[in-house]
């Protein structure tokens, strides 16, 4: 069988990077929608926004679903972006691997915290 790995690896065809590329776009669109929804609801609130009205924004189940999906989208989006940054600027493989691992831990931890806060409302 023909060798298709190493230097002869097939570099076109089966989504090498396209999946992450398109995921970054889709997650961006979702976060943009979330931003517009929060902004619109914030601006349409009459009177000064204190604690009650601010927390009230996230109280409904529909908003919780949208916010949760946005948190997950942010996790993935930031992962793709940070991976791009580490791959562009960090050459030593060991350092890069360590940074990629730390990025995953950091992002998953942050997402967990955000989700916990969301269900506290």
């Amino acid at each position, binding site marked *: 069988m023909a060798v298709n790995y190493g230097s002869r690896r097939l570099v076109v065809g089966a989504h090498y990077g396209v999946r992450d590329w398109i995921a970054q776009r889709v997650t*961006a*669109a979702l976060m943009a929608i979330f*931003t517009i929804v929060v902004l619109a609801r914030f601006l349409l609130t009459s009177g000064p926004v204190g*604690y009650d009205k*601010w927390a009230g924004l996230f109280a409904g189940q529909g908003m919780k679903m949208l916010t949760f999906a946005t948190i997950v989208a942010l996790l993935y989006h*930031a992962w793709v*972006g940070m991976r791009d940054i580490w791959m*562009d600027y960090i050459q030593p493989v060991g350092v890069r691997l360590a940074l990629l691992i730390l990025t995953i831990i950091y992002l998953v931890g*942050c997402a967990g915290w955000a989700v916990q*806060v969301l269900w506290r409302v």
Partner: protein
Amino acid sequence: MTEIAKKRPEFRNIHAFGDLPGYRWPAASIASGMHRISGLLLFLAMPFIIWMFDTSISSEISFARFRSAFNKGLWIFPGVLVKLLALALIWAYLHHFICGLRFLWMDTSHAAVTKQFGASSAKFTIVASLLLTLVLGAKLFGLY
């Protein structure tokens, strides 16, 4: 006799500090570079952003703590510094948002990737995000 091929230069990774200052930086490059910087900033500040989400939303008491962080300060940091960080994040979000929409537009429209439109939309992105930052920053620092 075959000539030994001259060793051709290989371009693999950017040596950030060595290569980047030597590049030509038209508006589109600046917008793109700022997109990366603002993204990195938002990534690094994520714990602070979630802390703001946490304290502002969890209870009346934590909401008061959230407000006092901007007026009286947080931990060892004075309120002004907290506001400056918030201002930097406001810029980062605005730039990342507007520039991101620009990229989405360019991904879906051939008309958006012409040289002229690329330059003008990049300038619009940079200026609009800075102006909006000024407007919101003035509000943050209580100028109106």
